[in-house]
């Protein structure tokens, strides 16, 4: 029993933070909103230089062959930077779905390209009516009942569904399932999708917690700097206590998320419950963080110019994609009832 990250894991986290501090500033994010793809050209190639896209890809396919515990802190960093690129779908869910299919041709064809940053993968879960970033994906992994299908985007009709978050790019995808596109079906397909959904939820939880960390830092900085009644507003207990509650919620949610990452790595039967805990607590911690942060910034928190809304929107929407906290609480209840 050792519930702690290694020095190497923390080092990798710092590397990714420095990378995103350079490559994903909020000015840069804003500059992409009006562009046709909304995405940064060359980003994935650079991201691949520090190994993130292929982190979970086995070494034989050109990846780093690392695990989800190594990955979870990096997803926090992605959230912290409000990175809009499909890191979860490509590197956490997509790469694992492909590897878990145990289809040598499929692995040989896609995993090296994922690891090198050449290919981005988009994932269409049945719980979500939209597929994020389908427009830049080289491969769509689509759920059709219990079946897993690998779809060439050229064989699908994509309809852009503009999002309230100008960084997000959502699409309806119309396509025709065929034997040729089917990668897995039956109990195997069902298990793959169940794991993929838990993975996606855990990835969203980690990103949300990264956003929440950023928000609490912004709120603390503002509360220390903003003076009213002759003192910094952060000296008022009304502010202190709310930030303390926020910090507590985030820390406990992190424990859930790290446990979820470990359960993913182990692939053990604690995963479904761990994923529920991670998803619910992260969404709730974020909901608190986002609301409090806007409130603590007062009027400027409600402006377009200030970055508050950018982080707020991202995390709020991550908490609604893949089923809301209510949906996951329902799943948790069912799992607890089944455990009787």
């Amino acid at each position, binding site marked *: 029993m050792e519930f702690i990250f290694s020095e190497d894991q923390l080092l990798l986290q710092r590397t990714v933070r420095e990378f995103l501090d350079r490559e994903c500033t909020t000015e840069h994010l804003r500059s992409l909103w009006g562009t046709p793809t909304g995405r940064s050209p060359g980003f994935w190639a650079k991201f691949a230089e520090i190994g993130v896209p292929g982190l979970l890809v086995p070494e034989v396919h050109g990846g780093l062959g690392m695990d989800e515990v190594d990955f979870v802190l990096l997803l926090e960093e992605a959230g912290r930077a409000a990175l809009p690129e499909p890191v979860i779908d490509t590197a956490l869910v997509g790469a694992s779905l492909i590897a878990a299919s145990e289809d040598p041709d499929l692995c040989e064809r896609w995993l090296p390209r994922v690891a090198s940053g050449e290919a981005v993968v988009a994932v269409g879960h049945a719980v979500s009516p939209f597929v994020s970033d389908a427009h830049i994906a080289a491969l769509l992994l689509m759920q059709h009942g219990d079946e897993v299908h690998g779809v060439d985007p050229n064989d699908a009709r994509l309809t852009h569904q503009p999002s309230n978050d100008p960084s997000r790019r959502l699409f309806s995808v119309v396509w025709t399932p065929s034997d040729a596109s089917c990668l897995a079906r039956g109990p195997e397909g069902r298990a793959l999708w169940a794991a993929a959904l838990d993975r996606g939820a855990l990835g969203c939880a980690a990103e949300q917690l990264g956003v929440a960390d950023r928000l*609490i830092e912004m709120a603390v900085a503002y509360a220390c700097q903003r003076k009213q009644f002759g003192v910094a507003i952060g000296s008022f*207990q009304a502010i202190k206590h709310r930030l303390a509650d926020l910090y507590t919620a985030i820390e406990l949610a992190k424990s859930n998320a790290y446990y979820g990452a470990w359960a993913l790595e182990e692939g053990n039967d604690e995963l479904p419950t761990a994923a529920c805990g991670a998803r619910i607590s992260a969404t709730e911690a974020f909901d608190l963080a986002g609301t409090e942060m806007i409130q603590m910034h007062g009027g400027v928190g409600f402006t377009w110019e200030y970055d508050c809304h950018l982080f707020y929107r991202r995390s709020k929407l991550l908490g609604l994609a893949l089923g809301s906290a209510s949906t996951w609480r329902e799943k948790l209840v069912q799992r607890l009832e089944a455990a009787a």
Partner: protein
Amino acid sequence: MDLRYTPEQEAFRKEARAWLEAHVPTEPLPSLDTAEGFEAHRQWEHELNAGGWAMVPWPVEYGGRGADLLEWLIFEEEYYRAGAPGRVNQNGIFLLGPTIMEYGTPEQKARYLPKMASSEEVWAQGWSEPNAGSDMAAIQATAALDGDDYVINGQKTWASRGAYADWLFGMFRTDPDSERHHGLTFILVPLDAKGVTVRPIEQLDGEAGFAEVFLDDVRVPVANRLGEPEQGWSVAMATAGFERGLMLRSPARFQNTARKLVGLYRETAATAERIDPCLRDEVARCWMDAEAYALNTYQTVSRLLAGGKIGAEASLNKIFWSELDMKMHETALRLLGARAELLPAAPAASGVGSWLDGFLFALSGPIYAGTNEVQRNIIAERILGLPRR
């Protein structure tokens, strides 16, 4: 990161479980806040100590078994799972003991720890005074050096276990010209000393869990001082850290309550015509939060074992467990509805349990060991860096 237990840890768990199964009283003991219950609990502590289970992380020479903190958590899990009695000497074994381990002289360790482990000496806390509650640095009770003795005068209050305990630990002002947290000294006081008057205070639940302690020219040898003179604040902060952080309320206590709550939900759902889905969600949330608290504690312990220290994050734990405890009991009361108020003697009380008593006790959680308001200030100022004023 590896959240599996080692074979040694599994073996330790098995050994603890077997001992507890063979020794835990089958009938619950009377409340430890009654004279009779206090003695019954002391007897139980004697038995635990004879088995070597009183304080597993302590060195063998002081009555422990040299276990690490992870094994201590495992022991706690088994202890609560077995439904074993509350720890009458928790102020001693969980709070003062670790402080003596850190600040005590070899003589003090040998003098106090074994009798603490066996509960031959049960300890009360003497932190608060009538004018020093959340503002503990406002302590007024004095200890004047007179030859080889301190002469103590003043009043302590809300002394947990004070009504029946043998000893009291607390801070006293040894420098009469000092202010705030300077000039305080940590001293151990026998409650049978001349000049000590203990007046039990009846709690909200009708029992005498705490007491006022009046000290009039009480002479205590200088050897009863823990740590350096005038350094009492640092010593007390270590004790408070143990109290809030880890020892006083291990996660097992709350996981056990959560399990019982899930059990109550199942029983209610099996017989009720309809059960409010909101209540079902609340039960699941309580269970999840108790698990999260356990996970968070395993993280803290892993950090400690890797050479880290427990700091202001202890305040986070304290807020979380005390408020979770209230939420769990509140949820149980809502599941029970009108039957919640029945005493065990009531003909219709079957299955009601002691949730209402538990709820009333849970009300004290956000107060004792430093109010949750103070804990929130600590998190805001020491972890987040918000300005004190």
